């Protein structure tokens, strides 16, 4: 059952081929059997899941259940789940049990989706390797000595390892697309404002966006249909109809103009990755799409701009973790300042502290204009690059990340080496554009991701291209060794 796609599971549930309870038991069993290998799931909600599955089976029996009713999923531990520990991968929130659901969680709950548990992640979503989690690193199912990517590494590894057919994730600079690429699955970061951020613990509010991870583009479409909604609790959520993303999957890609940014094929790109991406582009061309070389001239400024803007916003977003209202508080504080400083130094890991310090620096008196002000201007330039490009092309396609999954600890002590992992994904967050990654090859036994960037709210077209690509390729059907 764990090799079925979500689309197949939906059919199986609705045709009573199997029940939601059976399905849920199967995945819970897989989690208890294999999670030790991956460390992808940090909270398992077995009892709750079985109860939800029973309810789903009742709804299915009545015959009018929503599409996803009875399908089991995992949620990234960044989404608040009522009554279930929501840690954000941090010691700071190790004891935090929210009394409310994130809108994303609520949407799935309403649709009868069964939550199996919560997935591991880089602490507060800050990382590209899942090495910053308080709960230890997640291992890549394709090579357990390698990282799964981050920050949604737990969700990606769980889907790749068939611990769940799909999972929710979030993307601030590549946190859905890069782990999807490194784990050989499909993942989509929607347009900023497409999915509600309510109840999703903020890293960088103007960049964060939630999206689905699954093995196929078709499944991503099914999940996004449920995930995307207008939510008046999030002022930045856009009031715009949610199309049926499944409806346009089978359209022909003939005549589609695909921009290939030359800046995404520069030095630093692994030759194996480059070859796989170029092969994929050729496949798309063979399907009738038209390839157009384009330029995104300010691409090289996206990482520097991001590492001002994201830490600046994070430095404020993470001030609420002060030991007063919830979460961790240090033992025996000697006074108020001691409580603040020790709570935050003990509760936050090294990378989180570093980003808070950088953000504080970039906003502080005397540096604001040179850093934050300048980064905002560069953000405008980057946005303009995409606006210009989309005057000429329908979609942009390139590599998701510069190389396949790397070994634990291989990026050394220099944070910048890790930051460059997101060199191709960050720009879309700065511009607020949707981006997705689908598997497009293998290098050294590890998956390669193809990135598809769309215009604002053009997720349906991206999913259409990805689905059509998956009709002529089988990279998305491959499983890591040991999974049968």
């Amino acid at each position, binding site marked *: 059952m764990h090799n079925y796609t979500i689309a197949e599971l939906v059919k199986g549930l609705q045709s009573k081929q199997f029940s939601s309870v059976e399905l849920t038991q199967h995945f819970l069993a897989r989690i208890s059997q294999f999670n030790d290998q991956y460390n992808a799931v940090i909270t398992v909600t077995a009892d709750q899941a079985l109860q939800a599955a029973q309810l789903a089976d009742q709804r299915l029996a009545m015959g009018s259940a929503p599409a996803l009713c009875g399908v089991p999923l995992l949620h990234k531990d960044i989404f608040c789940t009522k009554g279930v520990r929501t840690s954000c991968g941090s010691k700071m929130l190790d004891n935090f049990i929210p009394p409310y659901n994130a809108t994303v969680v609520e949407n799935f709950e309403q649709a009868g989706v069964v939550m199996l548990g919560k997935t591991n992640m880089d602490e507060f979503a800050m990382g590209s390797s899942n090495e910053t989690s308080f709960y230890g690193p997640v291992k890549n199912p394709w090579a357990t000595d390698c990282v799964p990517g981050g920050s949604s590494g737990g969700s990606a590894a769980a889907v790749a390892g068939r611990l769940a057919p799909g999972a929710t994730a979030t993307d601030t600079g590549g946190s859905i697309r890069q782990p999807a690429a490194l784990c050989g699955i499909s993942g989509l970061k929607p347009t900023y404002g497409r999915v509600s951020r309510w109840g999703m613990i903020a890293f960088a509010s103007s960049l964060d966006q939630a999206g689905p991870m699954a093995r196929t583009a078709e499944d991503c479409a099914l999940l996004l249909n449920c995930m995307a909604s207008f939510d008046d609790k999030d002022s930045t959520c856009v009031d715009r109809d949610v199309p049926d993303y499944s409806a346009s999957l089978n359209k022909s890609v003939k005549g589609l103009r695909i921009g290939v940014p030359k800046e995404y094929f520069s030095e630093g790109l692994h030759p194996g990755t480059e070859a796989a991406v170029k092969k994929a582009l050729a496949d798309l061309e063979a399907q009738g799409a038209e390839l157009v070389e384009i330029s995104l001239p300010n691409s090289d400024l996206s990482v520097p701009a991001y590492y001002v803007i994201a830490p600046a916003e994070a430095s404020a977003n993470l001030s609420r973790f002060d030991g007063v209202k919830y979460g961790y508080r240090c033992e025996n504080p000697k006074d*108020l300042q001691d409580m603040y400083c020790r709570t935050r130094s003990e509760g936050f890991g090294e990378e989180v502290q570093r980003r808070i310090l950088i953000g504080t620096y970039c906003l502080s008196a005397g540096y604001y204009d040179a850093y934050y002000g300048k980064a905002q201007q560069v953000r405008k330039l980057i946005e303009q690059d995409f606006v210009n490009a989309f005057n000429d092309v329908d979609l942009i396609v390139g590599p998701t990340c510069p190389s396949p999954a790397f070994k634990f600890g291989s990026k050394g002590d220099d944070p910048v080496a890790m930051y460059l992992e997101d060199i191709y994904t960050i720009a879309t967050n700065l511009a*607020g554009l949707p981006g997705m990654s689908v598997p497009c090859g293998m290098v050294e036994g590890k998956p390669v991701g193809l990135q598809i960037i769309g215009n604002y709210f053009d997720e349906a077209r991206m999913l259409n291209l990805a689905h059509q690509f998956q009709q002529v390729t089988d990279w998305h059907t491959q499983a890591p060794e040991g999974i049968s």
Partner: protein
Amino acid sequence: MIIKREEIEKLATLSRISIDEKTITDVTERLSSVLDLVDQLKTANTDSVQGISRPFQVSQRLREDKVTESNQRDKFQAIAPATDNGLFTVPKMID
């Protein structure tokens, strides 16, 4: 660019993070490395560019002034580090 030790200390104070003697050199080195990266921004020509702080500019929605929240103190305080008689408690604030 090398960030000065006093600056690190000021940042630590502003962000209420304590950095101990053992790690301050490492922290300084790594922050400096990140600042080298972000200093690349200086190469950008941004004359007459109006910066943006978010992806697209739409206007703020306004909420009707109607009370819909009820008292949930017990629920919230059940997960608080320290409370007393309905108050959150903290080490004495000095004024």
